[in-house]
């Protein structure tokens, strides 16, 4: 690998406070019982800030604030005016994108080139897109006068903290709902900076409330009687628990859960292009991606060629300081996630798959995992069935398109899939048969605010993004 001089992005653009309260009714407030936790930088294990731990009382306070804002301000407000607030927010995000990107990389561990070039542009675009819907709801295909639902309780994961916030808050507000959002406990900081942006935009108090905390805080939120709509992105296990918790209530529920996507490479695929897509599919964001292409299915006749090229490409990946602009793979988000990745990878070796990683020096402090592939994987192996949520790829082979479909669909998940072939008719034939909510052909991990995203089967239900994404937040 070429030696690159370090190209660190400056941290000076971020002005972190030592501690943060909860953002309720337009103000930062202390939690009722005064408890808190620390958010750390997973690349160095240094403490970034102390964050409040919201309890049931705090959640109640936030939901009440959201209810008041819904009934008195945001619900009755003309869509045209809601749109203007959302456009303001989109613009402020664009103007402060560098600051947000650096903070996202600090708190999450993702490479700055991803937070800067992927997360932040998508966040701004998402607000911009849904801003435009706020005054056009009668045109969205849900009847002449669709109404909001009320107060949305939203719980988001740590892999794309600010992007998941945008996916939740932008459509909710556009449709006329107010929200209480709980960011993940390991990545609360950009959500708190977003709260400041809401203040800067003069968004009416109570429309957006941010309650930080861990699982119990989230549970209190989704189970609160004053919540009309629950939106969750995270693991399938927690999603199941939430579906049970809201059972019997009138709460509308959307879930965006785990995945075990097949990335299917046919013998006529251009190998270099496919390899770029495979690498992007599994190593983007350290593999902390619910739609990651974590199962590589290669047509047998080209398996050796593709693997050889893939290994060569993997040896070029730069693992290290997330704030270095040359870094391809940053830090694993938490010690707990690192332990899970290690446990499943060890199971892969123990069950007989062959493990390979390029020579790769990992930093001494922080949480790191080298990009890894397993060959000789069978469908029975745990690494072919369970979501690893890390930079670990399981490689299987197939002979016919029908066999590729069988293997790709042989999972309880159904979030995404990839197809690599020069033959257009085969792309469409495969797409018809894949039980997955998003199918990428000759590309992977593409996102756009206009494009609906969400899963089949145990990857959840409901769609986020696009015109379809409004449905979750309308009383239809």
């Amino acid at each position, binding site marked *: 690998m070429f030696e690159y001089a370090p190209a660190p992005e400056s941290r000076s653009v971020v002005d972190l406070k030592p501690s943060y309260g909860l953002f309720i009714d337009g103000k930062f407030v202390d939690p009722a019982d005064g408890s808190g936790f620390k958010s750390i930088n997973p690349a160095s294990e240094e403490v970034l800030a102390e964050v409040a731990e919201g309890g049931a009382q705090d959640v109640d306070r936030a939901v009440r604030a959201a209810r008041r804002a819904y009934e008195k301000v945001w619900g009755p407000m003309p869509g*045209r005016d809601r*749109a*203007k607030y959302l*456009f303001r927010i989109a613009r402020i995000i664009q103007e402060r994108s560098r600051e947000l990107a650096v903070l996202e990389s600090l708190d999450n561990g993702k490479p700055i080139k991803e937070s800067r070039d992927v997360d932040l542009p998508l966040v701004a*675009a998402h607000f*911009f*897109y849904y*801003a*435009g*819907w706020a*005054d*056009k709801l009668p*045109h*969205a*295909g849900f009847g002449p006068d669709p109404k909001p639902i009320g107060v949305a309780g939203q719980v988001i994961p740590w892999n794309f903290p600010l992007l998941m916030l945008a996916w939740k808050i932008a459509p909710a507000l556009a449709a006329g709902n107010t929200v209480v959002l709980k960011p993940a406990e390991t990545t609360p900081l950009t959500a708190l900076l977003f709260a400041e942006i809401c203040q800067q935009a003069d968004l009416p108090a109570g429309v957006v409330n941010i309650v930080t905390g861990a699982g119990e805080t989230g549970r209190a939120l989704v189970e609160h009687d004053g919540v009309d709509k629950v939106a969750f992105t995270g693991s399938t296990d927690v999603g199941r628990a939430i579906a049970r918790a809201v059972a019997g209530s009138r709460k509308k529920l959307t879930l965006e859960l785990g995945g075990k996507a097949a990335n299917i490479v046919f013998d006529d695929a251009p190998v270099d292009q496919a390899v770029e897509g495979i690498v992007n599919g599994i190593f983007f964001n350290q593999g902390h991606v619910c739609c990651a292409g974590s199962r590589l299915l290669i047509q047998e006749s080209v398996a050796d060629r593709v693997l050889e090229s893939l290994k060569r490409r993997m040896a070029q990946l730069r693992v290290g300081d997330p704030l270095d602009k040359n870094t391809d793979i940053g830090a694993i988000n938490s010690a707990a996630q690192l332990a899970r990745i290690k446990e499943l990878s060890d199971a892969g070796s123990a069950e007989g798959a062959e493990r390979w990683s390029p020579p790769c020096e990992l930093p001494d402090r922080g949480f790191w995992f080298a990009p890894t592939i397993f060959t000789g994987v069978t469908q029975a192996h745990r690494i072919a069935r369970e979501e690893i949520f890390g930079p670990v790829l399981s490689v299987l082979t197939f002979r016919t*398109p*029908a066999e590729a479909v069988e293997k790709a669909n042989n999972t309880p998940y159904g979030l995404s899939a990839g197809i690599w072939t020069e033959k*257009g*008719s*085969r792309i*469409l*034939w*495969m797409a*018809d048969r894949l039980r997955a909510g998003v199918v990428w052909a000759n590309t992977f991990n593409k996102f756009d*605010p*206009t494009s609906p995203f969400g899963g089949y089967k145990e990857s959840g239900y409901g769609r986020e993004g*696009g*015109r379809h994404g409004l449905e979750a937040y309308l009383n239809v």
Partner: protein
Amino acid sequence: MSERVAVRKTYKLFIGGKFPRSESGRSYLVQDSNVSLASRKDARDAVVAARAAVKGWAGATAYNRGQILYRVAEMLEGRREQFVGLGVPADEVDAATDRWVWYAGWSDKLPQVYGGANPVAGPYFNLSSPEPTGVVAVVAPETPALLGLVSVIAPAIVTGNTVVVAASPSAPLAAVTLAEVLATSDLPGGVVNILTGRLSETVPTLAAHMDVNAIDLTGVTDPEVAADLEVKAAENLKRVLRPVPTDHDWSADPGLTRMTALLETKTVWHPKGA
């Protein structure tokens, strides 16, 4: 100390992102200002500029076009007082600004409500998408000077068309001032071209021009003139938006028809098979 002598503005045409005088060297007096009196040649030059801009503008992403239209709203908001000074009522300036915002949001949504997959009876992928028709000639309404103008320009360009606008002959100052807004909004030169002067000189040229794809006759008040222009437009089968009644309510929800009238629908077929 003597009172400061004001610097007066020259009101010129807006063609290809620049502000030229009429090639004819003529002007006419409106609100104590000399305004360019556009010729047939100016109209033809404007069509050339509009045509040259089609590729870039129609090829820009919907997101990019939306951002630029929103930027126009931002710029217009900042020049509110200037329009008020020209005699445009403040609430009309606000309505015009809001109209840019409304249309900005349509750039990436109209294809979603006006296009879509067609479930044909066979193993085929079939998708219909709207595309801009190309160069649109627009006769702006006589009044309201700003809201009327914005209400005919924004729906034409948001989808990727470029326009040559014949501005209201009696209210050209607002039109030229809007051109200054457009020129500072990252809108590529040539996407909007504005001609001031007599409609009887420029509009027949535009209606008969073989490189114009559509004509919006909104500002034509004489039914016989409108019919004659439609006859001219028929030569190359221009899409025609007919005049609106003079008592048309410009503050009402404009709906989608001003956008959809200036679109083509393209349907793509592709077989499915392993």
